[in-house]
C-alpha cells in the first residue's frame, strides 16, 4: 500500500505540474504567436516567455524523483 501511495504522490507531482505548464504555455504561446505576427523582432523574448512555465514541470519532476528515490 505504501508503494502505491508513493507512486501516486510522484505521479501527482509530475502530472499536475505538467498540466499547469501545458496550460500556461498554451496561453503564452497563442499570445506570443499573435505578437510575432505584429512584431517579428520580439521572437527572442517570446521564446523566453514560452520557456518560463517549464520551470513548474521541471520542479515537479525533481520533486517526483525525490519522492521516489529519497524515501
Amino acid at each position, binding site marked *: 500500500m505504501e508503494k502505491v501511495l508513493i507512486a501516486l504522490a510522484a505521479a501527482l507531482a509530475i502530472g499536475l505540474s505538467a498540466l499547469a505548464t501545458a496550460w500556461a504555455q498554451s496561453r503564452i504561446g497563442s499570445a506570443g504567436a499573435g505578437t510575432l505576427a505584429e512584431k517579428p523582432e520580439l*521572437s*527572442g*523574448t517570446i*521564446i*523566453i516567455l514560452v*520557456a*518560463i512555465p*517549464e*520551470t513548474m514541470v*521541471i*520542479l515537479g*519532476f*525533481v520533486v517526483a*524523483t*525525490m519522492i521516489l*528515490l*529519497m524515501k
Partner: protein
Amino acid sequence: MIVRMAKIEVIGPKSLLDSVMGLIREMGLTQIEPSPCGFIEKEEERCITAFLPDEKTLRERFFLEDMLKRIKELLRVLPEIRPEKGMLSAVESGQFLEDISKVLSWSHRRAGELVAKKTGLKAEFEELKRYEEFLTAMASLLPYMKASPDVDFIGVTVKDASEIMFHLRALLSRLTEDRFEITSEELEDGTSACLISIPKAYSQAVRKALYSERVMELRLPESLAEKPFPEAVEIYSRRLMDIQREVDEADNELMRISTRWRPTFEACMRWIEERLLLISATSYVFETKRTFIICGWMPDEYVETLRERLDSEFSKSVVLEKKEIREEDMGRVPVTLKNPAYFQPFELFTRLLPLPKYTSYDPTVFVGIFFPVFFGMIFGDAGYGLILIAVAVFLYLKYRARRVISDASKILFISSINSIFFGVLYGEFFGDLGNKLFGMEPIYLERREAIIPLLFFALAVGLAHVIIGLLFGVVSAMRKKAASEAAAKGLYIVLVICIIILIASLAGIFPEFFSRPLLIIILILSPFLLFTGGLLAPLELLKTIGNIISYARIMAIGLTSVFLAFVANRIGGITGDIIVGILVGGLLHLINIVLGVFSPTIHSLRLHYVEFFSKFLEPGGRRYEPLKSPESISRRSTRD
C-alpha cells in the same frame, strides 16, 4: 565587449562645413548629436545657435526631394532590367543633375500616360472577359441562325435548360406566331446560353415577357450594347485582340524607357539620397558667427584617425576636440558591441536581447563562456557530440556566406566539443552503447544511476552562476555609485549562501552545528536587507533562491536525453536482427539528437536571460548609428 566611445566636438570655418560633413560621412564612424546638452557649456549657449541652412541649400533640398520622389515613382512603374555599370560615374557624382531632371520629367510624364493607358485597357479587358464564355457560345450558334436586317437577336442564360426550354418555346410561339428560332449551348458552370432570333416587330413584347418570366437577358457591355448581335460578337473578338496588342505596345515602350534610363535614374537616386542625408545631418550642426560646431560620439580608437584626416585635408583649419564623458552623459552614450572572434557567433543569441546600457556589460561574453558548458552538461554524450561536430562542419562549409547559419554552426561546434567532454565524464557514448561495445566507464558520475548527486551538481552550478551574476551586479551598482543597491546585492550573496548551507546542515549534508550560527547571521542581516533593498527585498531574495533551483533543469533535461538513448539501445537490441536493430535504434537516436539540440539550447539560453542576466544586466542602451552613406548601410545589412 561594449566599445569604448569618445565624446567629440569638431569645430571649423562655416565655408568648410560641407566638405567636413562629406569626410565624416565617408568615414562612417561619427554619430552626430542633435542636442547640445552636455556638449556646450551653459555660459557658451548664448553665442551658439542651431545651424540654419541658407536659401541655396534649402532650394537644393526641395529640388532634390522632389526629384527623388519622382524617380521613385518612375522606378516603381518601369520594368526591372539587368543592372549595368559603366558610364554612370558622372551621374553618381551629381553632375548633369539639371539635364537628368529634364529627362526625368519627360519619362515620368510618358510612363504615367502609359501606365494609365494600361490600367484602362486592363479594366476593359477584364470587363469584356466576363462575357467571353457566353459570347463564344453565341458565336458558335450564330451560323445556325438566319441573319437579316429585320431579325433581332436576344441572348439569355437559363439554369435548367431541359425544363425551361419547353416553356420558353411555348411563350415565344405564342408571342411571335411561331416566327422564331432558338438554339442553346451548355456553359462550363452548368447553365445554358440560348440565342433567340425573332422579327424586330416582336422584340419589345418578347423582352417584356422574358423579364416577367424572370429569364435573364444578357446585357452586353456598354460599348457593344447598341450594336446588332452578330456584329457585337465580331467586334468583341476583335477588341480583345486589339487590347492585347495595345498593352504589349505600352509594355514595349516602358521597357525601352527602362533600358535607356533606369540605370541612370538609379544612380541618380543613390546620389540624391546621400546628398539629402548629408543635408539633413547638417541640421544637427551648431554655429557661431563664423564657425560650425559638430558634436557627436565615435569609437575612441578611431578619434586619432579622424583627427589626422581632418588635419591633412583641411590644413589644420578644422579642430577635433575630445571631451570628457561626464556622469550625466552616460545615458546618452551610444552603444555598439565588438567581440573577439571566438565570441562573435554568440552575438546571434544576444541580438535577441535589448541593447545593454553603456555602463553595463556586453552579455555576449557571458553567453560565450557559459552557454557551451551548460549545453554540454545537459547533452553530455560523446557519440552525439561527434555527430553534431560533423553536422556543424557540414553546415559551415555549405553555408559559409550566410552569417546566421555560419554563426549557428560555430556555436554548435563549440557546444559539441563540450558535449563530448561531459559525455566522457558521464561515460556516455550513444547512451550505454559505449559501455557495451568497448567497456566505457564514467569518470565523474553515471547520470542514469546517480540522479540525486546529479541534482546537487546542477544546483551547485546554479548557485555559482547566480552568485557570479550578483557579484557583477555589485560591481555594476558601484560603477553607477548606487551604494544601497550594491549593498543589497552583496547581502543577497551572503544570505543566499547562508540559507543554502543552513538547508544542507538541516538535511544532514553539512555538520549540524553550522545551523545555529547561520540562523543568527540570517536574522541579523535581514533588517539590513530591508534597509538597503526596500520592502520588496525579501521577495527578491526568494526569487534568487528560486532562480538557483531553476538550474535543476540541467539535471532534468539531461536525464530525459539519457533515458531516450538507453531506450533506443534497448529497443534496437530486442528486435533480434542486427540490421533492423541498427535502423530502429538509429532512428530513435536521431530523434534524441534533434530534441537534444533544441531543448538544451532553449533552456541554456533561458538560464542566462532570466536567471543570470536579471542580476546585473541593464537594458536600454542607445544604439550607435553613425552617419554613413545609405549604400554602406545596405551593404552591412545584406551581410547581416
